[in-house]
C-alpha cells in the first residue's frame, strides 16, 4: 500500500483520535502522578484508639502533672495535666518534649561494663554482681567509708535507698548537688530556728521583689510562676527585678533595677536601712530580736545607708528609698532570692539580707508572704542493721565535709571580703543543727588534691557532676581518679562516659517513684509517678537496682533491704500516704499559711562583712562573666531535647558556637562586632566563642548560657553480647545495627542534637565556697575577652 499525503494525515489523525479516546493516556498520567506521590520513606503513623495516662514530670524540681496522649497504647504527646496543683494544665517546652527523652539516641540500652576504652554489654546479674563484689572487697579491707554516692536530691525513696545502702555498708559519703533550696533551708534554720522548707506564696503576693531570680526562666516551679506572672495585672501586683541584665524576667517586671553584679546583698541591706530609718518596719520581729536587731539596725545604717549603697550598686538613692517604701506599704510583700533557675546555691548571707527585708515587713507565714513549710512527709523506713564494718566505716567523717583547717580549700575563690578566717566557718556550721554540710564540690576537690583518691567507689544517680558542677574539667579529673565509678544514668552523659559500670535507669516515663512537687511555691505536693510506657530498653528502676545490689551482698546489708522489689518498698515506706497516693496520684498540702509563729534571729549579721567575692583579679580580668539560665535550654541533669534546641535563638547558639552576650560599649572597648569570633578567658579556662551584641546587658558584664557544651555519646566501641553482631562505634559516629539478641537496637549512643554544641560555661567558672554554709555559691568569675 502506498502511503500518500492524504492517507498519512488520515492515519495520523486517526491515531491521535484513538489515543485521545482510549483511557490509556489518562490512566498512565494518573498512575504516574500517584507514583510520584508515594513516599515510602515518609512514615505513616499507626492509627488507633485514643487514651490518656497521667503521671508527673521529673525533668526539673517543679514536677508538673502531665497527661500522656496515647494512640492504641502508643504514647504520642505529652500535655499538661488539668487541675494538678502545680501547673493546672500548663506545661513547659521540656515537659512537652518528654517523649524525645524516651527515644533519645544517647540512651544506654543495657548494662555496660568498661573494658579498656570500649564498652561491653553485660547482663543485669553480671553487672550487679560486679558492683556488689567491689563493695564487699572494700568492706573486707576496712574501707567501707570509701564508698560515695552523688545524687541530684535527697528527696524521695530512691535517694533514700541510696543513702540507706551507704549506711548499711558503712559510709557517710552521701552527696546531693547544691541548690537554692539548700540555702533557704539553712537560712530558715539559722534565722528562725526551725527545720523547714521555704515556701513562697507568690500567687497571693501584691509586691514581689526579686533579687536576680529567673522567676519566669525556670526558678522554682516554672509553670506556676508563669501563671502567677500572668495574673499579676488583674491582681494589681507589682514585680520588681534586680538584675544586671535584661533577662526575660527583668523584661516582664514592672520595675527593672540593674544593680551591678555581686551587689545584690548591698542593695537588699540598703532597702533594710531605708525601711528602718523611715520607721517602716514591723516592730514585732524587732522587739523579739531585741539587742540583735539593734545591732543589725546599726550595721545597715552605718554601712549600708541608701546613699552608700547607691555608689556600690549603681542604683539611685531615690529608687532605693522608693522600693523600701513601696515594699513596706504593700499588703503582702515578698522578697525572693536564688539566681537563675535556682539550680545553684546562693551565698547564705545574700539570702539572709534578702530575707531580712521579709522579716522587716513581717510578712512571714501570712497570706502572700514567705512561709516556713513543714518538710516533705517523712518516709517510714524499717530499722537498719549495721555490722562491725559498717559501724566502723560510718564513724569516719565524710570526705567532702567542710572542716575548718583544710589548707588551700577552694583557693582563690574564697579570697573575697567575707572570709575572715576558718574559725567562723566551723562555728557557724556547727550551729546549723541537723544540716548536712557534705559538699559535693569539696568531695571532688579533695579527690583531686589527695595523692590517692579517698573514694574508691563512686555511685552517681540522677546527677551529672561532670557537666553541672563548676570547673567541670577538674570534676572530670577527679572522677577519672576514682578507681571504680558506677553510673545509674539513663543517658551516655559526661559522667557516665567516665564510669566503669553503667546500670541504666528507666527514664521518668518508664518508672514509678515518689515525687515531691512545689519548689519555690507555697504548696507542697506529694505524688506517685507510675510507668506510663513500656520500657524501651533493657533498663531498670534504680530502686530495684539498689535493692538487688544490697541483696547480692548478703548479711546485714541484705537484711536491711527486706523488700521483694522497689514497688513493694515504695508501698511500705510511704506508709499511711500510700492509700491516697495510689488512688489519687497525689496529695497536696493546704494553701493556708503555716500556723507556726516564728521569731527572727538577726544575730546572723553579727560579724557580717560581705559575701564571698567571685574569683579573679580585676586587673587582668576587667570583665565579669556570669552564667545565665534560659528557659529554652535545660541546664541540669538532663540535656536539652532536639525540640528545645530548635527553639534556641541564633543569638545564643550559631552552628556549634556559643554566643556571649555583651553590651555595645563593651564590644567597642574589646574591638569586636556582632557575630565576630573572640576568646574569653577566665582564671579557670578559656574558650572560643562568638559575640552577640545586646543593649540589655550592663557594660562590663559578659553573659553565657548554661546548658550548652554537652558531649553525649560513648567514646570507643560498644560491644554487644551476641557474637553474631558487634556494634562498632568508632568515635561514636556511625550507627551499625545488629540483629537478634537484646541488643537489636544498639546505636552510637550519641546525641548530636545537643551534643557537641557550644561551650559549657561551667568549664570557665570555678567553685566559690560560702564560708557560712559551705556550699558552692559561684555565680560568675572575672574574665577577659580578646579578639581572634
Amino acid at each position, binding site marked *: 500500500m502506498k502511503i500518500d499525503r492524504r492517507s498519512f494525515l488520515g492515519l495520523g489523525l486517526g491515531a491521535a483520535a484513538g489515543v485521545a479516546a482510549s483511557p490509556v493516556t489518562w490512566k498512565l498520567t494518573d498512575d504516574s502522578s500517584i507514583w510520584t*506521590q508515594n*513516599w515510602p*520513606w*515518609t*512514615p*505513616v*503513623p*499507626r492509627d488507633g484508639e485514643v487514651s490518656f495516662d497521667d503521671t508527673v514530670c521529673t525533668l526539673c524540681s517543679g514536677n508538673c502533672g502531665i497527661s500522656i496522649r496515647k*494512640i492504641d497504647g502508643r*504514647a*504520642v*504527646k*505529652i500535655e*499538661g495535666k488539668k487541675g494538678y496543683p502545680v501547673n493546672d*494544665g*500548663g*506545661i*513547659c*517546652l521540656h515537659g*512537652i*518534649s518528654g*517523649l*524525645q527523652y524516651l*527515644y533519645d*539516641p544517647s540512651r544506654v540500652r543495657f548494662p555496660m561494663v568498661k573494658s579498656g576504652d570500649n564498652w561491653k554489654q553485660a547482663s543485669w546479674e553480671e553487672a550487679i554482681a560486679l558492683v556488689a563484689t567491689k563493695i564487699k572487697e572494700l568492706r573486707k579491707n576496712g574501707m567501707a567509708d570509701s564508698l560515695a554516692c552523688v545524687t541530684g536530691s535527697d528527696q524521695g525513696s530512691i535517694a533514700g535507698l541510696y543513702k540507706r545502702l551507704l549506711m548499711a555498708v558503712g559510709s557517710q559519703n552521701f552527696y546531693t548537688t547544691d541548690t537554692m533550696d539548700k540555702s533557704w533551708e539553712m537560712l530558715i534554720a539559722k534565722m528562725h530556728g526551725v527545720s523547714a522548707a521555704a515556701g513562697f506564696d507568690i500567687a497571693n503576693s501584691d509586691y514581689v521583689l526579686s533579687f536576680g531570680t529567673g522567676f*519566669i*526562666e525556670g526558678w522554682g516551679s*516554672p*509553670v506556676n510562676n*508563669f*501563671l502567677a*506572672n*500572668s495574673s499579676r495585672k488583674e491582681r494589681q501586683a507589682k514585680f520588681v527585678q534586680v538584675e544586671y541584665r*535584661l533577662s*526575660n524576667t527583668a*523584661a*516582664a517586671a514592672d520595675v*527593672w533595677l*540593674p544593680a551591678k553584679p555581686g551587689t545584690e546583698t548591698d542593695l537588699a541591706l540598703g532597702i533594710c536601712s531605708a525601711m528602718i530609718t523611715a520607721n517602716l518596719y514591723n516592730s514585732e520581729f524587732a522587739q523579739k530580736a531585741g539587742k540583735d536587731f539593734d545591732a543589725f539596725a546599726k550595721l545597715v545604717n552605718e554601712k549600708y545607708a541608701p546613699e552608700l549603697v547607691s555608689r556600690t550598686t549603681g542604683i539611685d538613692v531615690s529608687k532605693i528609698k522608693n522600693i523600701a517604701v513601696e515594699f513596706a506599704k504593700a499588703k503582702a510583700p515578698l522578697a525572693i532570692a536564688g539566681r537563675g533557675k535556682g539550680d545553684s546555691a546562693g551565698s547564705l548571707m545574700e539570702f539572709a539580707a534578702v530575707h531580712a527585708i521579709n522579716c522587716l515587713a513581717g510578712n512571714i507565714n501570712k497570706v502572700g508572704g514567705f512561709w516556713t513549710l513543714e518538710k516533705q512527709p517523712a518516709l517510714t523506713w524499717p530499722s537498719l542493721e549495721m555490722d562491725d564494718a559498717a559501724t566502723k566505716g560510718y564513724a569516719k567523717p565524710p570526705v567532702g565535709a567542710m572542716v575548718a583547717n583544710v589548707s588551700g580549700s577552694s583557693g582563690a575563690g574564697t579570697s573575697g571580703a567575707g572570709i575572715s578566717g576558718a574559725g567562723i566557718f566551723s562555728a557557724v556550721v556547727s550551729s546549723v543543727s541537723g544540716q548536712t554540710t557534705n559538699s559535693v564540690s569539696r568531695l571532688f576537690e579533695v579527690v583531686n588534691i589527695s595523692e590517692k583518691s579517698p573514694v574508691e567507689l563512686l555511685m552517681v544517680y540522677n546527677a551529672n557532676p561532670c557537666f553541672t558542677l563548676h570547673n567541670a574539667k577538674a570534676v572530670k579529673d577527679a572522677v577519672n581518679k576514682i578507681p571504680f565509678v558506677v553510673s545509674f544514668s539513663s543517658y551516655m552523659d559526661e559522667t557516665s562516659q567516665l564510669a566503669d559500670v553503667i546500670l541504666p535507669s528507666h527514664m521518668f516515663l518508664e518508672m514509678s517513684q515518689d515525687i515531691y512537687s512545689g519548689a519555690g511555691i507555697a504548696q507542697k505536693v506529694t505524688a506517685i509517678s507510675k510507668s506510663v510506657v513500656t520500657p*524501651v530498653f533493657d533498663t531498670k528502676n534504680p530502686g530495684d537496682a539498689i535493692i538487688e545490689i544490697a541483696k547480692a551482698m548478703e548479711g546485714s546489708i541484705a537484711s536491711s533491704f527486706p523488700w521483694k522489689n522497689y514497688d513493694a518498698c515504695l508501698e511500705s515506706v510511704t506508709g499511711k500516704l500510700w492509700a491516697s497516693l495510689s488512688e489519687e496520684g497525689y496529695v497536696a498540702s493546704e494553701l493556708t499559711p503555716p500556723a507556726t509563729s516564728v521569731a527572727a534571729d538577726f544575730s546572723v549579721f553579727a560579724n557580717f562583712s560581705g559575701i564571698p567575692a567571685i574569683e579573679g583579679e580585676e586587673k587582668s580580668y576587667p570583665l565579669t562573666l556570669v552564667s545565665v539560665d534560659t*528557659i*529554652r535550654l535545660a541546664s541540669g541533669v538532663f540535656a536539652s531535647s*532536639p*525540640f*528545645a534546641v*530548635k*527553639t*534556641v*535563638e*541564633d*543569638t545564643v*547558639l550559631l*552552628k556549634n558556637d556559643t554566643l556571649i552576650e555583651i553590651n555595645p560599649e563593651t564590644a567597642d572597648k574589646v574591638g569586636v562586632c556582632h557575630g565576630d569570633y573572640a576568646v574569653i578567658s577566665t582564671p579557670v579556662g578559656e574558650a572560643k566563642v562568638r559575640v552577640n551584641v545586646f*543593649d*540589655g546587658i*550592663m557594660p562590663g558584664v559578659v553573659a553565657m548560657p548554661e546548658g550548652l557544651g554537652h558531649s553525649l555519646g560513648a567514646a570507643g566501641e560498644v560491644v554487644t553480647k551476641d557474637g553474631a553482631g558487634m556494634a562498632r562505634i568508632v568515635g561514636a559516629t556511625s550507627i551499625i*545495627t545488629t540483629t537478634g539478641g537484646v541488643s537489636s537496637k544498639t*546505636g552510637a549512643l550519641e546525641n*548530636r*542534637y545537643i551534643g557537641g554544641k557550644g561551650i559549657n560555661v561551667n568549664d570557665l567558672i570555678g567553685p566559690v565556697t560560702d564560708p557560712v554554709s559551705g556550699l558552692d555559691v559561684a555565680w560568675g568569675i572575672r574574665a577577659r575577652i580578646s579578639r581572634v
Partner: protein
Amino acid sequence: MTQDNHGKAHKFGMVIDLDKCTGCGSCMVACMSENNVPFKEDETNKKDSLTWMTVFKLTNEKKFPETDICYMPRPCMHCGGKGDHGHSPCVSVCPATATDYGYDTGIVSQIYTRCFGCRYCMGACPYHARYFNWWDPKWPDGMEEYLSPDVSPRMRGVVEKCSFCYHRYQEARDRAYYEERRDNIEEGEYQTACTQACPAGAITFGDLHNPEHQVYKLVKPDPHQCGKPRNPKAFRLLERLQTNPKVYYISEREWVRKAGDNYRKGEWGQEKQPVHDKGHK
C-alpha cells in the same frame, strides 16, 4: 457529609497577649510535637528551620538600661485577604490549589500531596509563616514511634505551615455531629496545641464571629472593617497590607504596637485607619 452551619460560617482566630508572653517557647514545642514537625542536627539556620510557630524577639532599640524586649509568637495568620473575601496572599498565587481558603472556618489549608514545591506562596506570604522541606524528615532510631496519626509527616519538596491544628477542629466537629449537635462546637472543644500548652495563658483561641467567645471579647473585631480590632491595645501585623489576619496581638506598650507595622517618620498615631473604600467613594 453535608455541612450545616445554619448559615453562619466560623471565623477561627487567635489573640496573643504580648504582655503575658514570657518567650518560653512552649507554644513552639507544643506545635512541633502535635504536628509531627521534624528536626535536624543543626537548627541554628533559622531560614531552613521548620517552626510553624515561631517566637520572635523584639527590642525597643534603646540603650542600657532603657532597653526593653518583647516576645512575639507568630503562627500562620490565616489571612482573609483584601476585603476578607478569602483571597489570602498565598492562596492567590498557588498554581496547584495546594493551599486554599476554608470559607466555613476561615482557615487557610495546606495539602501536602498537592504541593509541588514552587514556593510562590512563601514569596507571597508577608509574615514568613511558610516553610519549605529541603530534606526528607528523619527521626533517630525508634523515635518515629511517637508520631501522631492525626497529621501526616511531610516529605521533601513541599511547603508546610500552621493549620490552626485543623485536625483538632475535625475531631471536635466529628464529635459534635456524632452527638447530634451538628456544627455546634463549644469554645473549649476546639483549641490549638499552642493555646492549650501556653503556660502563661497568653494565647486565646476561638471563633471571631461568636460574641460569646473570649477572642471576640478581647479584640472586638469590627465587622465593617474586615475584623480590625476595636480594642485600642490590640493590633494585627502589617495591618495596612489589608491581608486581614486572624491573629491579633495585645500589648499595653506603645512601642510594641508600633512595631507591628511599618510607619514613616511622624506617621504613627496620625493615620491609623486604613481606607477600605474599594475604589468608589
